[in-house]
């Protein structure tokens, strides 16, 4: 399981740094966030790049000749052109981060956990409908995100 491998590697790395520098990294929320960034960034980059595939660079040049400074060009022309891609990437990243279990297992600590892991731990000691309710809630959230995603990706295709 690559997720397990990444989680273990990040954990070992954090421990190593903590031993050598004294920074309290092994149970830090920052390592958890960094781990989730690591697994979501490839998706975000890929989707954002795809949204630029049909982008006409000449539009940016036209904006420049019309008097727009480089940052204005990015804000007014490039980012709006990437809008579909950015929205899709954000939803995708959310889903991947939200449902990740294997990697996150190594990065949690007491008082710092994620929903899927809480569910797992709860299941070890209790058997009641609470977990089923959480699972339904989770499915609704992810399903909603997927529906939104589908809508925007579809829209993206139509636009192009």
């Amino acid at each position, binding site marked *: 399981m690559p997720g397990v491998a990444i989680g273990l590697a990040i954990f070992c790395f954090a421990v190593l740094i903590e031993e050598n520098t004294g920074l309290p990294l092994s149970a830090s929320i920052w390592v958890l966030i960094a781990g989730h960034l690591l697994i979501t960034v490839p998706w975000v980059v890929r989707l954002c790049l795809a949204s630029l595939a049909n982008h006409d660079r000449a539009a940016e*040049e036209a*904006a420049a000749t019309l*008097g727009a400074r480089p940052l204005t060009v990015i804000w007014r022309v490039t980012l709006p052109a990437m809008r579909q891609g950015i929205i899709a990437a954000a939803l995708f990243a959310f889903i991947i981060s939200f449902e990740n279990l294997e990697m996150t297992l190594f990065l949690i600590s007491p008082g710092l956990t994620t929903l899927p892991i809480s569910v797992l731990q709860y299941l070890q000691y209790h058997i009641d409908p609470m977990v089923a309710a959480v699972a339904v809630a989770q499915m609704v959230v992810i399903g909603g995100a997927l529906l939104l995603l589908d809508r925007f990706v579809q829209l993206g295709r139509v636009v192009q």
Partner: protein
Amino acid sequence: MSGRVPHLELDRLSKQYGHHTVVDAVSLAVREGEMVVLLGPSGCGKTTILRMIAGLTPASGGDLLLDGKSILALPAHQREMGIVFQSYALFPHMTVANNIAFGLEMRRQARGDIDARVQEMLRLVKLEPLAARLPRQLSGGQQQRVALARALAIHPRVLLLDEPLSNLDAALRQEVARDIRILQREGGLTAIMVTHDQDEAMAMADRLVVMMDGRVQQIGSQEDLYERPETPFVARFIGHSNIFAGELDGDALRLGDERISLAARYGGRGTVTLALRPERVSLAAPGKNARLHGRIELSTYLGSVVEHVVALAGAERLVVRNASSGAGQARVHAVGEMVGLTWDRAGERLFDADERPLAPLGEIQLEETERTTSHV
């Protein structure tokens, strides 16, 4: 305004990519209100020149002067050039009105002024009913007009047109060309257009610049280029002259086994290039009064003209185009028919080995010059 100083001046402007020279020391002075067309095959550096003027591509050498002041150091957003791209490059997420307003917003003008100017531009390009549409809801011709309106809205110091007609269908092209020309004339705009289409260039230009391999071949009016091409390339590119390279031998050009009797006498010897205008060569009965003989390979009625492809004795071919109406009207000839070809000194132009034109020293009359051609 149109004083001694040219409005826009290119002074030995150059562009190199590594060791590859794309634009080689091009100098050009553009007067206020003038439309100059850069004409040449693709890859000749014409678009690079346009991009250097707009500030989108940095120049490698030379200078660029606007009203006598160098603008080479200015970034694109400070040059105030209006550019219409080949792809139009409209902002896809903005309406027509917002596209046109963009340049004015960058100038931080008051909302009321912007709206008024946008209305004015929409009226100018006849797109008022479509102000709220998005670019993808417009036809190619309409998009092109939005691009033009967007460039003109900012009162550009020079209007730059990069192949503005190449994405339009043939029927629309002439109409749009005329519209652009009228707008440019009426507004007294200085404009530089880039194209590879010589008809388009001839129709739009006050002056033309013919380019090849990054160098200027010739600068001049339509008539200069057509009547007095300065290089064989110009002769071929403008009006599709027939080009033959051979040896100058007295009053004739030797071309392998072929001898072409010239219409004028030239000083000089050695290897020369002959350019013959298809429209100025006429067919005659084979015999003494023909400068050259050949066999009809193809003869096509094209409406206003009849085009003959004549195969010469060697592997060479010659294209002749004659009017299908009026005096000496041409007719379609049978394939394989032997014909004579004749022309006068205005139909030919000779270039020496260095591709410089040779001046005719005197006319050579054929023995019995019979100018009518078609009654062969």
